[in-house]
């Protein structure tokens, strides 16, 4: 077992915990959505990186090529990207509505207003 062979997992996990940290630690709602986006894109890497074969090519059937990357993670992640942008749009719409109702997009201000 070699640690160097697992570098793609380690990079994915680093991005994932960075996104998780931004979601939990930052009070600004737009910053939270950016953190959620980072978490989401790190999952793309988690799926696509194990499908890669060094020396292979993109899964488009062509004479003269025999080694292709695994196409199934690509299909899953295509769906995930489109659904991700749909949920992002909904989240941003919620942020805009919260700003209209509370006058702020900072979590602390919103909680303080709720306690009044």
């Amino acid at each position: 077992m070699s640690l160097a062979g697992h570098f793609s997992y380690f990079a994915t996990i680093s991005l994932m915990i960075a996104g998780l940290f931004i979601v939990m630690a930052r009070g600004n709602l737009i910053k939270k959505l950016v953190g959620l986006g980072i978490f989401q894109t790190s999952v793309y890497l988690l799926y696509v990186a194990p499908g890669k074969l060094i020396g292979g090519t993109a899964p488009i059937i062509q004479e003269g090529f025999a080694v292709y990357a695994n196409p199934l993670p690509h299909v899953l992640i295509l769906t995930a990207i489109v659904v991700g942008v749909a949920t992002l749009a909904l989240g941003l719409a919620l942020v805009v509505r919260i700003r209209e109702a509370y006058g702020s997009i900072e979590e602390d201000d919103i909680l303080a207003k709720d306690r009044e």
Partner: protein
Amino acid sequence: MDTWPGADGNLAPEPAIETLIIEVLLALMMVTVVALARTRNLFGVVVLFGVYSFLMATVLTVLDAVDVAMTEAAVGAGISTVLFLGALLLCRSEEARPVHRPWLPLLVSVAVGGLLVYGSLGMPVFSDPGAPAHRHVAQHYLANAMDETGAPNVVTAVLASYRGYDTLGETVVVFTAGAGVIALLRRRPGRRKP
């Protein structure tokens, strides 16, 4: 095109440069994310997120996921950035200074990261042709998709033909999200403007 190292079914003997490119790009992404977490101006945050998305699209290209890379560049870097900028137009673009040190979130993130690293040690190494993911249904699709659907791009064949109903379900999700956005942002008569 004909003298390609993997054409006979064997993998290229010298994989170092491709791996090195991926490692450098992943390091750049880490730098972008750290800069993003430290930036307080939300406009800067959104621009850095666009940079991050384009780097992700480049990594996906190197990982031979060309369809995913195109979608990520167009949807992840393009439409997401436009949506963020539109939301910033309606909100204030400066983040408040945090009132307390985020020790607990840091602890939780690092603990989750440690667990994930421990779990990933049992996974197959990068680009292992004997990994289970490469030995089951994927080979069937690669061998038969061209004859069964007529599409040379296997990703297209699976997305639009074998898994066509899933794609239909995906459009339902997008429609629902769009309807939700309209319901949230619709201007009702009689409500005062903020």
